């Protein structure tokens, strides 16, 4: 069971659903997570710099790996992109892919929310996906034990 805010999980699921709808049929959920992280890279780099984004994503990945061991092969490249999904694809475990993707993005958003608050995190997400109605996501719910 994940420790990240339920609201962040909801937001991550919605983001990944948006990415899935835009993706080719051949793409997997984890690839969508990689694309979601790549989309967050630009606005987050404005706040943290490329090195700061690398640190945040690396931390999010460590937290996600603790919950979804299948992500152990995933790495953050020096440029802030994610590597290792091809290997996960070969296992062909869709459920793990889906959970892994949601948990990774949720942790990235959760870290951001820890620093700048849920409200500003939602604004960052809205800027990254301006066509989506992410602002309706309830981010104000408290963390569940």
């Amino acid at each position, binding site marked *: 069971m994940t420790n990240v805010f339920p609201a962040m999980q909801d937001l991550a699921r919605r983001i990944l659903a948006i990415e899935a709808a835009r993706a080719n049929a051949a793409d997997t959920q984890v690839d969508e997570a990689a694309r979601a992280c790549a989309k967050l890279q630009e*606005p987050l780099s404005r*706040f943290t*710099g490329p*090195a*700061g984004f690398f640190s945040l994503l690396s931390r999010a990945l460590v937290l996600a790996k603790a919950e979804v061991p299948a992500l152990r092969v995933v790495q953050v490249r020096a440029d802030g992109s994610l590597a290792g999904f091809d290997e996960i694809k070969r296992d062909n475990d869709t459920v793990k892919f889906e959970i892994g993707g949601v948990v990774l993005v949720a942790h990235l958003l959760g870290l951001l929310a820890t620093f700048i608050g849920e409200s500003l995190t939602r604004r960052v997400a809205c800027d990254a996906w301006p066509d989506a109605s992410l602002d309706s996501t309830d981010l104000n719910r408290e963390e569940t034990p």
Partner: protein
Amino acid sequence: MSAQDKVTIRMVPTGVPGLDEILGGGLPEFSFNIIAGAPGSGKTTLAHQIMFANATAERPAIYFTVLGEPAIKMLRYQQQYGFFDQAKLNTAIRFINLSHVVLEKDLGAVLEEIIREVEAANPALVLVDSFRTVVRKAQGAVSDVELQGFIQRLALHLASWQATTFLIGEYVEAEIRDNPVFTVADGLLWLSQQIERNSIVRKLQVVKLRGQGSVPGMHTVRITEAGLQTFPRTFGLTGKDEHPKGLRRLSTGIAKFDELLHGGIPEGDSVLLAGPSGSGKSIIATQFIAEGIKQGEPGIVAIFEERPGQYVRRAATFGFDFDTPQKNGQLEIIYLRPLDLSVDETVHEIVAKVKKIGAKRLVIDSLAGFEMALAPDFRTDFRESLYRMIGALTRMGVTIISTVEIEDVFTAMALSNFVISFLADDIVRLRYVSLNGQLRRMLLVVKMRGGAHSIDMNEYQVTDKGIVIGKPLRGYRGLISGIPGPWNAGPADRSLSPDESAANP
């Protein structure tokens, strides 16, 4: 050149209470400014406050972060302040991280990146935090001339693009002479923290501001949850009409005292009420306020040694209801005991209350308590601060009674511990005298700048109705020493007994 021939420079409001007055109206539009100071002095908060006050979606602000505090941390902490408006983020306010450009490339690339973003966004404000790190990185690689050229090109380009610019940096005062950025800058705001004993005092100085008259000197700054607040040394009263003094007399509420003053205290005067502990200074001040309320003249009491509740209860013991006038807006009791208080903050509070209730009378009880509430750094300037404070308040037409405690010595009669007698228009001295084996009280009007006054030294008593002034003490030599002897040889004690004098309120 006539006024109509001069270019009109629009002022950019800072959004910082008091700062526009210090600057002489605001910051000149399209100026190139530096916000400098040591770590923790409030530079970034000041920059954010100015940015949030001015940025709009049409004319946004670009905040370039370099090797100092990253934007994510700024957002984390700055959103705690009242001025932070998250709706402006990424619309009216854009953060751009330049760290990698500064680290990996040269000054030319930094300039190119800034220009690219500015031309794309058409910002009204450009902020670079910390510009010091840009320069520090470059200093090893380029000559001073190249560095100055970079700063000049940056300043010229940003002004040409009609942006008001703020470079934020950690500098030390010794750099003012040699650092090229200070030469190019139109404005230089210097923030500092002064530490004395356990006290920290924040101050702001406008070291340089081209084209307009700013208020010189060090101005107190306080950072609260609302953000920065500055307290101009002018107390916000520049250019205000002066109220003529002494057009009428204000009753003290003690008829006999009014007689000694030849009709009461001249309106707009500053009165120093000096005396030892227990001599009744606070009671006279309380009666002065109570009489004002009775006459429809709202009053303010600034107390430092007891809490408002205690003060009101003590007034009630003399038959004065201070609860009702507080509710009716006729009386404000200001209790100021924060740590590291400055005179400027105190006056700011008093001036705000004077304006709020239209106060005509003010009591400061006491100057000793006031001084104790100040940060040590301000205590050294107490006389100068009092001079400015009393001048500012009396110009507003407020009549002030300040109490000051003096330890009586029985060889001389001091007027104040603060060497501030020259600040007072009128001085009234209370003291103990030893008469007939009793420690009795004596009052005398030492000085009235506005005219004549009684030169008698009257005995008085503190009763449950307040101060009761008796007849003059005559027939004694050396009354002001506190240990008088008979004027003539022989038993000539002609002073009134307490019972006799009580019959003369």
